[in-house]
């Protein structure tokens, strides 16, 4: 297979690699094979652009910054949700074709482009930030850096939706109407743990955002290009807050006793 997929050209430091790229739309499609000349330092998006330029000018690819910060070029490379602009060709096995296909969790528009608008609708469901009254007379607040650090991690999210793509609750079970997905649990965590926020989203998390559907497989953490510890630092702490709210009668009892003790 290596002989058919790669023709190494050692003198120029390049090699030809086969790509299996999904071509089609919501009505159907198939993988089509292309070849690209791979030079040192190239990423998958570079190869797709080369294919688009030389062999398939009608290939639909969404991209923008080519620096891993806009989250536009999300796709599946060899079955793993990845940003194509951050996936180095040198990191992929070179003895078989590179398979590139669109994200499976969202409706296909064409080729590698999916309709991710569902995510923006879901975002509107999350209860917005509500600040406590200002700390100072000039209408400003004071926050400790240690409290801010915890939520800063969540704010690195670039909304590439790879975590939504890999989450099996959405990908395999299509619970788009009852589960907001890891991206918006992280969004809720950023608000819920914000040192100025006063809103209580715990019942929303339990009832409306479907946090109970998450079974902690950590696939979202694995694919995050910003290396946000989605499960351990975001979703599980939220699950624990939901336990405080709905599933811990002993804890509630202790709180009542402590509150009564303080009053007396």
């Amino acid at each position, binding site marked *: 297979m290596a002989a058919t997929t790669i023709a190494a050209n050692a003198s120029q430091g390049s090699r030809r690699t086969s790509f299996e790229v999904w071509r089609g739309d919501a009505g159907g499609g198939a993988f089509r094979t292309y070849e690209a000349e791979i030079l040192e330092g190239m990423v998958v998006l570079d190869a797709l652009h080369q294919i688009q330029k030389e062999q398939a000018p009608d290939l639909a690819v969404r991209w923008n910054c080519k620096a891993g910060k806009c989250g536009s070029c999300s796709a599946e490379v060899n079955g793993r*949700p990845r940003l194509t602009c951050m996936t180095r060709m040198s990191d992929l096995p070179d003895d078989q074709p590179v398979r590139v296909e669109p994200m499976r969790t969202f409706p296909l528009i064409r080729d590698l482009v999916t309709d991710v608008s569902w995510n923006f609708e879901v975002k509107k469901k999350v209860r917005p930030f509500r600040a406590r009254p200002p700390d100072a007379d000039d209408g400003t607040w004071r926050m400790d850096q*240690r409290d801010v650090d915890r939520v800063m991690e969540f704010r690195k999210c670039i909304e590439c939706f790879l975590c939504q793509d890999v989450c099996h609750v959405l990908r*395999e079970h299509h619970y788009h109407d009852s589960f907001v997905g890891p991206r918006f649990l992280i969004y809720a965590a950023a608000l819920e743990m914000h040192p100025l926020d006063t809103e209580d989203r715990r019942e929303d998390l339990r009832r409306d955002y479907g946090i109970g*559907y998450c079974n902690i*497989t950590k696939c979202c953490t694995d694919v995050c290009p910003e290396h946000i510890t989605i499960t351990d630092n975001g979703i599980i702490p939220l699950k624990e807050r939901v336990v405080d709210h709905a599933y811990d009668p002993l804890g509630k009892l202790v709180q009542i006793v402590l509150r009564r003790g303080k009053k007396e």
Partner: protein
Amino acid sequence: MNETAVSLLKLPRSSFGETSRRDAWWVKPLAVLIGLSAFIVYSTWAAFQGEHYHFGNYLSPFYSPELWGESHHAWLGGPRPAWWPGWLLFSPALLILWAPAGFRLTCYYYRGAYYKAFWADPPSCAVGEPRSGYRGERSFPLIFQNVHRYFLYLALAFLVVLSIDAWNALWFEDGLGGEAFGIGVGTLVLTANVILLGGYTLGCHSFRHLIGGRLTRISSRPLQYKCYTGCSALNRRHQLWAWMSLFWVGFTDVYVRLCSMGVWTDWRIL
């Protein structure tokens, strides 16, 4: 129903094991399946033995605390409680082993691992599942995973008991009816067991929440903040602690058992 909602209904569903992944995605869940199955089989066998669980000042962690039992470690005498039905097999481990087992069963790390390995839900990331139905941890029976913090309280108590066992493992019979300080290989084995279980228990996600994670402005409580920071450091390697402590608690039982059976000799260092 808007256009997006309609097109969401048309999303493809994978068949079991269907994936474009090129890596050996099945290796990790298979390793978890084998590792956990081996531990469950061995610990169940060991719990039902009811003998060779103590050797001098050493007590197997599968049998600690020994509430009723044949050894001098028993808190309430022995060999079995008066209320235990005579026809029913008795082993001191049966009275206590449900607590650490429940702690591990409801542990956030193990949950994610065994949902994949034992239930293929999913078999691995971006791999097709065998079932189309899914209830998650939102309803019966998995909603009971939320009791994890209650098992944590018990696990913390067990940690104290096992620390006392490690302390007792420092004091050997001197042959004159008294006790003398000493260190045997078994002392090191029991001490390592407490350290590894401590790393696992004190890095627990529920503990991290209760110790300070639940606070939005944790900086206002410096002591809790320090505890939270320490717990978070352990939590970053929770998976590693989970496996190391699981292996070592099993090995500790093996060590005490084989010493008690005369197969292994407990070498004295001091």
